[in-house]
């Protein structure tokens, strides 16, 4: 049997139709979109077509879409690009984050604090990793320059009420950024409906290529480039645009946004069955993250008294690729900070297991996985201290 991939929250294979769409832009329509000649014009047409496609599905206008190299870069640009100007204008100096943000947000905020004198405040989250609207409302009594809260958590899959948070921020006139890298593969994202000023995307999570992302920046939001140079991307990101990857992202986004309901209809029953069976067949196991408000492909667990890293190795050797939630290839046992935030003690948190299904995952694959999981868990538990 071929190895079975169950780690679609880490990355996804590029859709065949996307590969085909990208193909001509490597060596046929290869021009620099900033060039005056026809080679450049053709590349520019592809670039702007991609921007319009992205904008259309996001409910945005094309001038609000900045192409970047990744979701992480988009997060960086959203924070670093906006907070200095905003602070200058209003004097507000504080960033407000959820404590379970992706490192691209957390570490950026940390640097803004350490090197540039910003304050960083963390909200609390409930046992599922969700923030509370009341707390945000109260926290915004103080001078806040930007709020950054992820749409869906990568480790536990929980969704946050972005629309409602956005409403609160809008009322207060505070910038609101959301990292939608995980949710873009599953939900229609309409930036007007979500009430966001800034929204980050990374193509490889939704069957697009790696190395390309986008940042939505609402018109009127003052943003400065991090990469200075040429005037590409409206002067907000210098660098010759990577046309094949951008075309691939737009194609993948179009597909995921127009096919999302079919994909959810396929994924959710598979995922629900997986959760049900794991909870009933693995003793001392718990679902992490919200039971309903979660990514439709995402099943994450903690299993008590189990070396989660060893379980991942054992499963991989048996032909199933999953994750412990946050990558740890060095074998150093550190409980995930997200699970610790959610209140899990090390004896639970060290035994984390994340299974993230993909659009092509079959029931047979899940059944094969469930056939070997209980015995694998048992073996790893027996080897435990």
């Amino acid at each position, binding site marked *: 049997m071929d190895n079975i991939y169950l780690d679609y929250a880490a990355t996804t294979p590029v859709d065949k139709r996307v590969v085909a769409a990208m193909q001509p832009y490597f060596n046929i329509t290869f021009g620099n979109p900033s060039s005056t000649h026809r080679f450049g014009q053709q590349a520019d047409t592809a670039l702007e077509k991609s921007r319009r496609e992205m904008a259309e599905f996001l409910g945005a206008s094309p001038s609000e879409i900045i192409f970047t190299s990744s979701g992480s870069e988009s997060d960086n640009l959203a924070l670093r690009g906006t907070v200095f100007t905003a602070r200058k204008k209003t004097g507000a100096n504080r960033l407000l984050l959820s404590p379970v943000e992706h490192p691209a947000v957390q570490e950026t905020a940390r640097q803004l604090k350490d090197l540039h004198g910003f304050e960083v405040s963390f909200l609390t989250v409930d046992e599922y990793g969700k923030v509370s609207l009341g707390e945000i409302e109260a926290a915004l009594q103080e001078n806040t320059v930007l709020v950054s809260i992820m749409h869906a958590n990568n480790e536990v899959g929980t969704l946050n009420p972005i629309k409602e948070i956005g409403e609160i921020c809008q009322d207060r006139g505070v910038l609101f950024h959301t990292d939608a890298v995980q949710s873009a593969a599953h939900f229609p994202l309409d930036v007007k409906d979500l009430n966001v000023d800034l929204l980050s995307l990374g193509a490889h999570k939704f069957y697009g290529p790696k190395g390309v992302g986008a940042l939505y920046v609402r018109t009127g939001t003052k943003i400065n480039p991090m990469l200075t140079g040429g005037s590409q991307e409206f002067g907000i990101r210098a660098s010759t645009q990577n046309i094949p990857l951008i075309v691939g992202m737009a194609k993948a986004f179009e597909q995921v946004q127009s096919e999302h309901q079919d994909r959810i209809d396929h994924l959710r029953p598979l995922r629900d069955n997986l959760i049900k069976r794991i909870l009933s067949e693995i003793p001392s196991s718990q679902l992490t993250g919200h039971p309903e408000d979660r990514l439709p492909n995402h099943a994450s667990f903690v299993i008590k008294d189990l070396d989660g890293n*060893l379980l991942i*190795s054992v499963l*991989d*050797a*048996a032909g199933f690729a999953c994750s412990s939630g946050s990558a740890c*290839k*060095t*074998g150093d046992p550190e409980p995930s900070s997200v699970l610790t935030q959610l209140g899990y003690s090390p004896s639970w948190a060290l035994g984390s297991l994340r299974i993230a299904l993909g659009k092509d995952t079959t029931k047979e694959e899940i059944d094969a996985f469930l056939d070997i999981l209980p015995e694998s868990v048992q073996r790893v538990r027996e080897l435990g201290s």
Partner: protein
Amino acid sequence: MIAPVGSRVAVGMSGGVDSSVSAALLKDQGYDVLGMMLRLWSEEGSQNRCCEPDAQEEARFIAGLLEIPFYVVDAQEKFFQSVVMPFIDGYAQGRTPNPCLNCNRFIRWDFLLQRAKALGADFLATGHYARIKKTPAGQFQLLKGQDTEKDQSYVLHVLTQKNLSQTIFPLGDLNKTQVRKLAGDYSLPVADRPDSQDLCFVGQGDYREFLRLKIPAAIKPGPIFDPEGSQIGEHTGLADYTIGQRKGLGISDTKPLYVIQKDIQQNALIVGPTNSLGRQEFFADQVNWISGKEPKECIQADVKIRYKSQEVTAAITVQNPTSVNVQLESPLPDITPGQAAVFYQADLCLGGGIIRSD
């Protein structure tokens, strides 16, 4: 080769050329190879030299080149309990332990092997220079590596019949030059990274500083006595000296003086001239007979009392299944309690034990 082609073999990888070539050879021979590396304990503020991040990166990269999966397994706790603690205790009791022996016994051929089995492997392979032979009667024998310069059977004498039945040493019939050449043939990087390191868990300083941190009470200055019992100097702590040592005693005498004994009771170091140094008899405990059965009577064998020492012919008398008396044909100056005495008949490693304190 005892393993049927196609069986899954876990190779303990270090990033060094020996374990890398071992993995490549096995893959070439048609085994279902996976690479494993242990994460071992190290002194606070340092990296274990058998698995430091560089070595791990290198091993992971080589596994990638060979297109085999690679897994790192955390063994820090177990390593501390079964290798580092006995090492510290040994010094506290005046012995000079060899931690690699416990590492082989409790970490590689127990902890790692169990985990290799959980990964579906039937065999464990390492880059040691030693050979395993199965006799027609079904016995597994441990033989010296063909390359006697590199032979590592000394540190493998702790293995049992069961261990050997699940082990492959792909380099046993090769010498280092051939292994280097193979690395080139397989397009593997030949970074000269040692495959394992003595005292891998001790940080920047040497083991003496490590012991002072861990067991300050046991490493105190004390008297140096001559064989007649008169004090002729002061030592800095018994753990700082090894039997047979001549330099660094800080005593001037007409003739060279050597460490002959450590008196743990009196915290005294006994030194004497060269003629008082040699011993011809000692006892060894925790003896492992690789055949699984101790000899019935006294046997003749060649004995190695340190990893790199010359063999000396001896008469070995079994006292009980795990203790022996060893009578050497000629005296040796550096018989050191805590080190292993390993017994050979020609290339055949019979087993060995730990030299007893007086």
